């Protein structure tokens, strides 16, 4: 019924950022979104999870308050309150996107869209009406992804005893016992949250280490920290004999040939997400999928159907909000015919917000070996960093992998306090092809956690001062 230059199908981080950018470029924009604006990130992912992690961080800090001369008496934990706060933060952020839409004159069409011929989208609105909208320039699919169970291990999501992150975010109270299957970023973050709220957590990973995509040193450091805090970390684990009951789940976990039976109140499945490619008319308009079930896109994010683009999780990994946001910006610029910079997929940071935090860019040491790169390592522990000592957060390290000859930053890995913030110095350096030398040349303030980066850089050149 309405005509726009661009229609975005999905108002998550990819779609809403793309919509705002398109509007900045003078295009008229409609965004079709059935839930709240902000997508998984704002409603069911990044934001509410980080809000809960903040609660868990405060809980952990308070346990050590007495060492700092602050007596707080008995600490009581209430997950329900933490959860409600997390929902509030989430709602505020979603409202924030609504405000941005108004400011940028982006139209939010509340409903569920299906692609039609000739760049049209048929929308079933929230109140059940059916309407058709037309795009003159392009339709952009940003339908994102959704949680999924692990049926091959007998763990079909039932939302009570076998849950996903969606349910974990709205639990009224922390379960007594919880098994988390999958120790990637999501699994590790919820392991941190629930263990901090008194849940007995068993973290189960089929691969030989937790955070399997991170550098091996990083996995080892986080694993050590988790075990110290009383989490059960089971790696290279196989699940069998799963019995899902009404109030509990029983399963057999096999680690290193030893089998043990595990009975838990709930199982949280965190083994990956599925792209939302169904029921949006992809096949009918000629949009093809990859072997792995994502939408196939070109360098300019165009699908196999002319004039239809795809961005964010649905367009393939890494399934990260910031990757989707950048694709949104680029797709808007491509469609508007504006100048754009191609996305450098080789320099997207990975962040895990458990404690200690984890952040990384580029290659792991194992990948450098595999690629037969000639590299040098630099590593500096936060235990030797003044600022980390003052705050009593001395777990972790900065690890830099640089090219032996030219000093190019091949990879950087940080575990420790504020790692997810610290990584950006290295990210900007690497994006602009600064080498370890330019990082060293920049004088780092004292005392800061960032000095650990400067020292790791020096270490890679054999000139570390403080360790």
């Amino acid at each position, binding site marked *: 019924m309405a005509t726009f230059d661009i229609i975005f199908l999905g108002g998550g981080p990819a779609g809403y950022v793309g919509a705002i950018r398109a509007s900045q470029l003078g295009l008229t924009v409609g965004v079709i979104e059935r839930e709240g604006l902000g997508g998984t990130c704002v409603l069911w992912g990044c934001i509410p999870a980080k809000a809960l992690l903040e609660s868990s961080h405060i809980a952990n800090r308070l346990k050590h308050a007495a060492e700092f001369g602050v007596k707080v008496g008995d600490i009581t934990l209430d997950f329900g309150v933490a959860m409600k706060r997390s929902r509030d933060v989430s709602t505020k952020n979603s409202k924030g996107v609504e405000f941005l839409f108004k400011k940028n004159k982006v139209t939010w069409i509340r409903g569920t869209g299906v692609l039609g011929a000739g760049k049209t989208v048929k929308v079933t609105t929230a109140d059940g009406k059916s309407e058709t909208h037309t795009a003159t320039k392009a339709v952009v699919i940003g339908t994102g992804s959704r949680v999924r169970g692990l049926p091959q291990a007998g763990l079909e999501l039932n939302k009570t005893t076998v849950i996903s992150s969606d349910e974990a975010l709205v639990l009224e109270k922390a379960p007594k016992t919880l098994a988390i299957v999958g120790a990637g970023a999501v699994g590790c973050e919820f392991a941190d949250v629930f263990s901090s709220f008194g849940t007995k957590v068993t973290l189960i990973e089929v691969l030989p280490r937790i955070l399997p995509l991170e550098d091996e040193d990083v996995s080892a450091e986080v694993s050590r920290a988790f075990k110290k805090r009383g989490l059960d970390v089971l790696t290279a684990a196989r699940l069998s004999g799963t019995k899902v009951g009404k109030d509990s789940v029983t399963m057999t976990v096999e680690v290193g040939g030893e089998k043990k039976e595990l009975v838990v109140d709930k199982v949280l499945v965190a083994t990956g997400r599925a792209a939302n490619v169904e029921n949006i008319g992809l096949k009918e308009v000629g949009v093809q999928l990859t072997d792995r079930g994502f939408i196939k896109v070109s360098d300019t994010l165009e699908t196999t159907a002319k004039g239809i683009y795809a961005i964010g999780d649905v367009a393939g990994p890494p399934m990260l909000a910031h990757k989707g946001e950048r694709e949104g910006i680029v797709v808007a610029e491509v469609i508007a015919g504006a100048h754009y910079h191609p996305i450098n997929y080789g320099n997207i940071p990975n962040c895990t917000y458990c404690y200690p935090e984890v952040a990384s860019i580029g290659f792991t040491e194992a990948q450098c070996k595999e690629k037969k790169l000639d590299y040098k390592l630099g590593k500096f522990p936060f235990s030797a960093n003044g600022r980390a000592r003052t705050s009593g957060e001395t777990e972790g390290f900065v690890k830099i992998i640089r090219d032996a000859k*030219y*000093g*190019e930053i091949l990879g950087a890995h940080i575990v420790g306090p504020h790692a997810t913030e610290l990584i950006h110095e290295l990210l900007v350096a690497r994006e602009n*092809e600064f080498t370890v030398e*330019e990082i060293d040349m920049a004088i780092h303030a004292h005392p800061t956690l960032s000095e650990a980066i400067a020292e790791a850089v020096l270490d890679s050149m054999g000139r570390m001062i403080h360790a």
Partner: protein
Amino acid sequence: MPTKIFMEALSPTMEEGRLVTWHKSEGDAVKSGDVLAEVETDKAVMELVARGDGVLLKRLVAEGTTAPVGSLVGVIGAAGEDISALLGGAVAASAGVSPGASPSSPAPTPHAAPTTPPAATTPAAPAPATPVAAPAGTGSAKSSPLARRLARDSGLDLGAVAGSGPGGRIIKRDIEAAVASGGAAMAASSAVSRPPSTVADFVDQPLTQIRKTIAKRLAESIGPIPTFYLTAEFDLTRVAELRAAAAGEGDEYKVSFNDIILKATATALGRHPEVNAHWLGDKIRFFNRVHLGMAVATDDGLIVPVIFDADQKGIGEIARESRELAKRARDRKLKPEEYTGSTFSVSNLGMMQIEQFTAIINPPECGILAIGALEDKAVVVDGELAVRKRLRVTMSCDHRVVDGAIGARFLQDLRRLIENPLMLVF
């Protein structure tokens, strides 16, 4: 109202033009129809005339610089007229098209190779104390620190590299591309001692419009390297005599036919830098030194070790070196610097009784000589039938650099050297 001077399409196919000379200076009075400048198109040098009266207020393009058709190259207006608003965008628009290092001069830029061999890579800190200055002559080409290091190590002139980063900044991938297209070959040049010379090791010749058009058309027609082939049959009777006479002096003077052919080729190349060249995309590098690649078949495949400064070496030295290189190639013991940096290559399948074949050019080189089998043949010499030792050679030429007549002249000289090998001593 100022009058803008645009680069005009002076021929139907012209897409860009090189401003050869300005005929008016800034401040000169001009009348409509006056010749403002000479512009080289893809076909010829043409005149760019004024389309308005007044004073030439600004020349926006330096002599020797190439500008796309339709771009602003100057402004005519009333004396003292403020044209700053007009220039704001224009300077930015024309800045991107200056041809690299020395926009003011289209003349060839001579270069000396690094005086020290490319230091066995220092794995420690990448030379911390020295700020990474761009190599001389690069002007203010924007580049990343990593790109500067890579360029310095590859002996690349940053000014000759087109940047693909934000705002035309030269980044790693640009250096890698330049190196892949051969720019780095020089860094690997051997440590062969060579008498100090006042002559540069090579001369870079910016592409003229006619060269660009030839290159574009031919590449469209036949593939990325528009190759053509020249075949000639040489008489090796006197080479055989020379070889026999030398061997008679003792075992240390025993050399193969191939060694003598290599020597003759190197000598001819020294006299014909126009075929001893690299195609570098935006320019042609003519070498004053002869680094001869010799194709060697190994169990793993073909490799081309290099006899550096082959024109400076005697037949005996070439014989020893080629034997040694071939052996090391087959043993897979060649170091990278021993098989990079050639300026021209030779491939010989004569020992396998191949009478004649065409070899594929090893880019960025512009020619390769394919040597066939030496055969006793009945030929007519001075009106009489005679049995002579004959050899067929085929030169593959990159037409972007080597035109037919140029390749033929080289082969003519090579024939003279081979059919009368005494000429090799001159």
